[in-house]
């Protein structure tokens, strides 16, 4: 079957092969610049500084600006699967080796996900081919013919590349996923969780309890599965090389914010970890996030309300949502959606980032949503200052409060009910407000609620609660513990899919891919990522307090996505 296919290819390509390819191959021996290759792979920019061009699906012209190699072949080079299309790995160690029937390699292509039959047929009938060299790579990229003479799927664009481009790309591909990433030994995989100095100690304990229990059961499973590897239903013995005992490192940070980075560096130097999972961070994630990016260390779903500002596309931190900035923007849009705009908005905020960041986001979004409504912003420092600020509120005032210390603000409000007909607080105020507010205050108060509404259905919510209860886990902080469990399942799925390709980029890509599956622990209406996306939940409700109901709140708005 191979030979006729090759002949057909030659016939099809005809003159293009005979003439155009010659100058291309002639230059293929030149030295490549991996950095320029990276630019080509990631941005579709050729050696001449211009976007490269190609043709997909036979006649659809595409430019490097529309999409480039990384779209399909991903940052790791391991490829992907989407819409039933199988994108094979193109890392150097696969491309520049001949492809022979290799059961273990094939298992890695058998994505642990549902696919249409055509996909499986494609994967199960792998095409054998000799190793690529730069000449064959040039031919493949330009004419869509693999090293064995098979014609590529039409979705793989045929690119118009210069010899230098091919050499650069070849050099770059050889740098992709060369050695497995730090934090993995033959027996163990090291994972850390980060707790910053401001984190509530009881919440941190609840998180650690959840982590430790999950690790314990993962390791019990590993022990059971590896003890008798010859007993092998479902090919288990083929995956023996993928098993690792999970080893948890709790990274507790102390002291001033400017020292955090050095502490992280020191802990990482002492014991490199493959990823961080969950975590409880009260202060801004910014410095920690910079550390994750610099180390190319996946930091997966920390519990934080102050994630690094910006989109973070293709960064190494993955968050539940944009935290307090999201809450502030959703609130501004909510006010803008009301039939009658508020006559006067007074915004009070604390001095730290919990106060200033949402205040800034609120001001900016209000300027768009309600440009004619004046927003008076006032910084307060401490309880006394807040008290006098509250006293100035008039009945027609809409009050928005972003406290640095939520408990303090709730206590002040409870003792000094403001004259404002309505005041808004961030979601963190829910529990203290339920405990402290009088019925009149409950009536005046609204919360921004970037979580799910009561009574929504998520199958995994019940599975997880069952898992927790049967193992007698003390659930004192349900949200943090459920979110921690979700972070753990993401790492678990990522590693399970990667098998023994312990590459961080690859695991991150799998997490992007799998986040939307049925794993939502019921904390958010939807948790989903996409290629390069770093915030799994994107909106918020406005809620009112309902002390007489068990959950204590009811949503009063649509899900608002800024």
């Amino acid at each position: 079957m191979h030979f006729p296919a090759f002949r057909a290819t030659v016939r099809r390509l005809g003159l293009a092969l005979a003439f155009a390819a010659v100058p291309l191959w002639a230059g293929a021996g030149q030295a490549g610049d991996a950095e320029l290759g990276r630019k080509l792979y990631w941005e579709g920019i050729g050696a001449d500084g211009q976007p490269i061009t190609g043709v997909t699906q036979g006649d659809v012209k595409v430019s490097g600006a529309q999409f480039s190699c990384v779209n399909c072949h991903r940052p790791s080079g391991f490829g992907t699967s989407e819409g039933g299309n199988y994108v094979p790995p193109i890392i150097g160690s696969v491309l520049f080796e001949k492809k022979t029937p290799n059961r273990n390699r094939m298992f890695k292509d058998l994505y642990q996900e549902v696919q249409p039959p055509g996909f499986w047929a494609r994967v199960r009938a792998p095409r054998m081919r000799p190793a690529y060299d730069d000449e064959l790579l040039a031919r493949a990229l330009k004419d869509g013919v693999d090293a064995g003479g098979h014609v590529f799927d039409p979705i793989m664009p045929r690119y118009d590349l210069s010899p230098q481009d091919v050499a650069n790309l070849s050099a770059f591909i050889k740098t992709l996923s060369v050695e497995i990433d730090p934090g993995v030994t033959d027996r163990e995989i090291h994972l850390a969780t980060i707790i910053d100095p401001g984190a509530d100690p009881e919440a941190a304990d609840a998180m650690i309890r959840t982590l430790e229990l999950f690790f314990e059961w993962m390791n019990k499973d590993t022990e059971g599965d590896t003890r008798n590897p010859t007993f092998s239903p479902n090919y288990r013995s083929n995956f023996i090389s993928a098993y690792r005992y999970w080893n948890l490192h709790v990274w507790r940070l102390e002291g001033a914010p400017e020292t955090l980075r050095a502490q992280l560096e020191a802990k990482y130097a002492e014991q490199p970890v493959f990823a961080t999972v969950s975590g409880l961070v009260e202060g801004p994630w910014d410095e920690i996030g910079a550390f994750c990016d610099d180390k190319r260390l996946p930091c997966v779903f920390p519990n934080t309300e102050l994630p690094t500002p910006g989109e973070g596309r293709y960064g190494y931190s993955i968050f539940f949502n944009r935290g307090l900035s999201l809450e502030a923007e959703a609130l501004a849009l909510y006010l803008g959606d009301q039939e009658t705009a508020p006559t006067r908005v007074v915004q009070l905020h604390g001095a730290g980032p919990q106060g200033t960041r949402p205040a800034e986001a609120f001001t900016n979004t209000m300027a768009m949503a309600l440009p004619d409504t004046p927003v008076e912003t006032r910084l307060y420092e401490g309880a006394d200052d807040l008290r006098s600020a509250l006293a100035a509120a008039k009945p027609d005032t809409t009050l928005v409060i972003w406290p640095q210390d939520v408990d303090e603000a709730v206590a002040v409000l409870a003792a000094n009910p403001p004259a404002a007909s309505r005041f808004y607080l961030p979601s963190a105020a829910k529990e203290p407000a339920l405990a402290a507010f009088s019925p009149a205050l409950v009536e005046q108060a609204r919360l921004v609620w970037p979580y799910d509404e009561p009574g929504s259905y998520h199958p995994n919510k019940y599975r997880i609660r069952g898992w927790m209860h049967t193992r007698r886990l003390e659930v004192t902080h349900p949200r943090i513990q459920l979110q921690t469990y979700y972070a753990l399942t993401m790492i678990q799925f990522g590693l399970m899919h990667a098998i023994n390709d312990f590459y961080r980029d690859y695991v991150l890509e799998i997490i992007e891919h799998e986040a939307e599956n049925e794993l939502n622990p019921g904390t958010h209406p939807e948790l989903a990522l996409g290629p390069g996306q770093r915030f799994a939940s994107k909106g918020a409700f406005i809620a009112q307090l309902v002390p007489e109901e068990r959950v204590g709140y009811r949503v009063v708005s649509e899900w608002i996505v800024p």
Partner: protein
Amino acid sequence: MAEFKTVLRLVSASALGCALLAFAAPAVADHSGHGNTDTHTEGHDHSAPKAMDHSSHSAGHDAHAQGHDAHAQGHDAHAQGHEDHAAEHRMPEHLGMDEANGSELAMRPDGFQYKTSAQHYEMPDVTLRNQLGKKINFPELMAYDGPVLLNFIFTSCATICPVMSATFGQTQEDLVAIDDSYLMVSISIDPEYDTPTRLREYAELHAARDNWVMLTGQFDDIFTVVRAFDAVYKGDNKMYHRPLTFLRANKDAPWLRLEGLLGSEELAEEYKKLLHPEVN
């Protein structure tokens, strides 16, 4: 390159279609034979046992009228089934078992083709938002009495959407040449990420003309539309969505459903055939 490609048009190429079908059907049946319905964790085969059924059904006859009625009926029942799930659409949809996802023909020797079928879809009453942030009542938009081309995309999609959007983008000129009264609609299946701003940037990237509407909206509304076009994907994970394109000549005409990726010439050809069937 396009002329080298054999596009198997199952609806029109009757004799060839039937002949191939005779070969394909047992192959599909055989393939689905080892369909394992559970344990998706082990990377097992998930082909749907109904695959043969469905493909032979929609591939059946070249005469629209006869085979079509039966199909539409079957489809209604199918849609009804989905309605029942609507309220709890996060229920794991028998992963790998829904016949829509299994309908792709198993590998054929010549590899790549798209599949066509005529379908009737009920436009659901939902309000979405276009790339300019304006609210758009979907049935009102679809009440437009002219040709419509529609697909489902998302802007961060890595593999098939850029190709589908580039195809839409490039084919615009050809469509204008054939009949410029068309409306092009791309609906984001990642509505919360694809804000109007992102859709605007995406439209620019693909040189969208003014008659190319990109829609986002509330999650549930979007998925009502997805279900209405029988475009559901596995596990409600957008990463498993399929390349589908829908064409329609006017507001009363059936939808031409194209499954698989198309080239620009192929799309223009389908459009032309739809508007000027006498040409062929």
